[in-house]
């Protein structure tokens, strides 16, 4: 790469949130006419870095220079005025306004009689033509698919004479063709000398469009590389922070008796997919087995779980439970078939902090029984105490508000809630997020113990080592499709990462 001057340079960026250091000496350089991918795992500090750059957050220390001049944007508008525009994952436009208005609102061309609609249309057409989009700009934005809306958002971002364009996961709701069109547009922008910062979780896309890659890890700058000179496997190892080839990750091999494979699986999904969310996937989840879903963030783990549980309705494929075809069109139906879903976001979707541990544990069971078959407080207490003992929830008694428990114990109570419904299959989405290591190990052992009782478990975690530790089999996902399945005993972390990196194993 030729030695040129970066248009934008961020150096020594520190940002501390209460209790966490989000960015520690992070840096980033953007060059004109280049697409720069910002990579890193969840919590690596990508979004914080972008927020600092676009003025949403201020940094505690560090310098940002744009075209050699130090800048410090205090708001998105100020950043925009400086020439830094951002397009967010969800389209932040007004669907009820016309495409042309969306591109120029706030900067309408005015004539003597007010808004000059004619000039507005011409300008909007020209702005979209620069992105190779030719549509009727007088129609409301809602009449176009997300991809076109995304283009309108980019056109808007560029209409302020942006020098730096930040795309925060712009492709997450686009299909392949649409991504292709977006990339064409980006290439045109590159040719115009605009510096583009591209944030994505899709490895394929990173390599398809990027010239340069900056990797962040745990809020620190890991390195900046030319995309062409960084093999995928190395990129992944830099993101996860382990040298995969050398990492000898010993699996805790237990002498577990895997049930006979010829037995019909408890739940069999065939070609289950949802357009724009997950490509068709086959999964067999067996009683007494843990099926792990392995993959990087954004690979479609949670989406898969949501489809199976009926939260998102798949638009293709079928599901069988114990060989009989079922249509799990809603969580209610899924619960009736014996499924339980322990969701990813403990705080917002899981616990009710103000209620007692007992009430939290009983919640799902009572819901399943219906309001009319009310469990007496005494019955409830028996059940709650039973699970508190069985799962080792550390509390003085079952009447304490659950909000007072530690994260790990809250998670156990959640687990208890679903176990109390005596499900036949349990989906655990990130059951170990945000809790300490000892609690993680405990939770994983509990999962295994439950599994041995004949429960079918679908286990999701962003920590590959955890997936490896508990799973009997692992379905590996990448870019919203299943790329393979391996038996837990044969798998090791480097192997899975090699699979994800694609055929380099």
């Amino acid at each position: 790469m030729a030695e040129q001057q970066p248009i934008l340079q961020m150096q020594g960026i520190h940002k501390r949130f209460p209790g966490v250091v989000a960015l520690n000496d992070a840096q980033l350089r953007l060059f004109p006419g280049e697409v720069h991918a910002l990579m890193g795992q969840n919590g690596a500090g990508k979004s914080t870095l972008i927020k600092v750059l676009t003025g949403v957050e201020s940094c505690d220390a560090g310098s940002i220079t744009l075209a050699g001049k130090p800048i410090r944007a205090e708001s998105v508008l100020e950043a925009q005025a400086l020439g830094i525009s951002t397009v967010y994952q969800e389209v932040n436009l007004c669907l009820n306004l016309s495409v042309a208005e969306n591109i120029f609102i706030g900067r309408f061309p005015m004539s003597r009689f007010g808004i000059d609609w004619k000039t507005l249309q011409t300008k909007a057409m020209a702005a979209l033509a620069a992105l190779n989009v030719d549509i009727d700009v007088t129609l409301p934005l809602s009449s176009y698919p997300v991809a076109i809306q995304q283009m309108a958002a980019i056109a808007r971002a560029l209409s302020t004479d942006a020098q730096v364009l930040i795309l925060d996961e712009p492709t997450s709701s686009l299909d392949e063709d649409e991504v292709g069109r977006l990339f064409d547009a980006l290439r045109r922008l590159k040719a115009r000398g605009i510096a583009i910062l591209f944030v994505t979780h899709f490895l394929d896309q990173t390599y398809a469009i990027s010239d340069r890659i900056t990797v962040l890890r745990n809020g620190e700058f890991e390195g900046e590389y030319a995309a062409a000179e960084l093999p995928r496997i190395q990129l992944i190892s830099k993101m996860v922070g382990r040298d995969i080839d050398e990492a000898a990750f010993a699996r805790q091999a237990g002498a577990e008796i895997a049930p006979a494979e010829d037995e019909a699986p408890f739940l069999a999904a065939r070609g289950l997919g949802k357009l724009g969310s997950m490509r068709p996937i086959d999964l067999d989840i067996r009683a007494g087995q843990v099926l792990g879903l392995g993959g990087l963030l954004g690979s479609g783990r949670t989406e898969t779980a949501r489809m199976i549980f009926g939260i998102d309705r798949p638009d293709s494929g079928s599901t069988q439970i114990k060989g009989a075809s079922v249509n799990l069109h809603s969580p209610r139906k899924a619960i009736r078939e014996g499924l339980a879903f322990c969701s990813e976001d403990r705080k917002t979707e899981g616990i009710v902090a103000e209620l007692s541990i007992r009430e939290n544990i009983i919640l799902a069971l009572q819901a399943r029984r219906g309001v009319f078959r009310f469990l007496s407080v005494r019955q409830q207490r028996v059940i709650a105490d039973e699970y508190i003992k069985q799962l080792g929830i550390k509390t003085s008694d079952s009447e304490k508000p659950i909000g007072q428990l530690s994260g790990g114990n809250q998670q156990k109570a959640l687990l208890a809630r679903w176990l109390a419904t005596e499900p036949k299959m349990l989906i655990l989405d990130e059951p170990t997020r945000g809790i300490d290591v000892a609690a993680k190990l405990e939770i994983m052992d509990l999962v295994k113990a439950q599994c041995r009782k004949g429960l079918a478990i679908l286990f999701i975690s962003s920590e590959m080592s955890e997936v490896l530790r508990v799973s009997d089999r692992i379905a590996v996902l990448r870019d919203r499709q299943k790329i393979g399945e391996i038996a837990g005993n044969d798998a090791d972390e480097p192997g899975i990462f090699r699979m994800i990196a694609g055929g380099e194993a």
Partner: protein
Amino acid sequence: MKAMRYINPRTLPLVVTTALFILLFGFGAVSYDAFLSPQVFVNLIIDNGFLLVVAVGMTFVILAGGIDLSVGSVVALSTMVTAALVQHHHWSIWAITPLVLIIGCAFGLLHGVLIQVFRMQPFIVTLGGMFLARGLCYLISIDSISITDPTYTALSEYRLPLGAETAISLSGVIAIVTLLVGVYIAHYTRFGRTVYAIGGNERSALLMGLPVARTKILVYVLSGFCSALGGILVTLYMLSGYGLHAIGFEMDAIAAAVIGGTLLTGGVGFVAGTLVGVMILGVIQSLIAFDGSLSSWWTRIAIGFLLFLFCLLQRLLERSKLGKK
């Protein structure tokens, strides 16, 4: 109108409303001999001019995703302030009119600030304003005040001739001018488009750097202004001020806007549609008046059904749109 084309797929409710109006008017023309005269048509505007003025303000509020329940009370307060000042204190109309308009704007400003700055619900804030303004009426007088001032009576009786046998009142003219200004504001000013943007998606409007706070407050000020102006027209029409004037008027204004194709969730609709909405309410009233045997409460029943119908229509349109995607 050129601007119409911009919101093409959403014009259907307006088209339906207009068709319904023509149908109702046609029905009247066929049923009653005297119905099909220009004067009957113009009377629709004369008799509903104040509703039109208030409904224009209401349309902006609804377009921005809000609601203003205080309009009827502000109308009543305006009639009361006008009547009291002209009858008891012999103020000039040139002093009263600006004062009343300022009071209306002040009410709107209060609503807007409470809603925007203190993040309160428009429903509850303007409900408060509704009680406040209605109560203030009785502070002035608990009885109706008739206006005998010659300027007011002259203005009330003034008719601008429109051809041979047709004439329009001053309030009719003011209503039409208000409507035209409303259409202009909605479609040809930054403020108007910002109102639509806020109604469409307030968060996006903020992120697009639009003056959301200012616009939202101004929308309520505009509604307060329109209510006060409507109050002045009511005073001219009735030649009295009374705390019981315009009871339930806010609901008529909301109904006119909704029947005219404005979506209660905000962001979709036309000021011009509100005219058709008002005219439909008016034509139903005229039909019932021409019939002579029906009680005026049949108007309410008809409006009730129409509202159901239009909300249903809008919902179905939304759904068919979603289905297509």
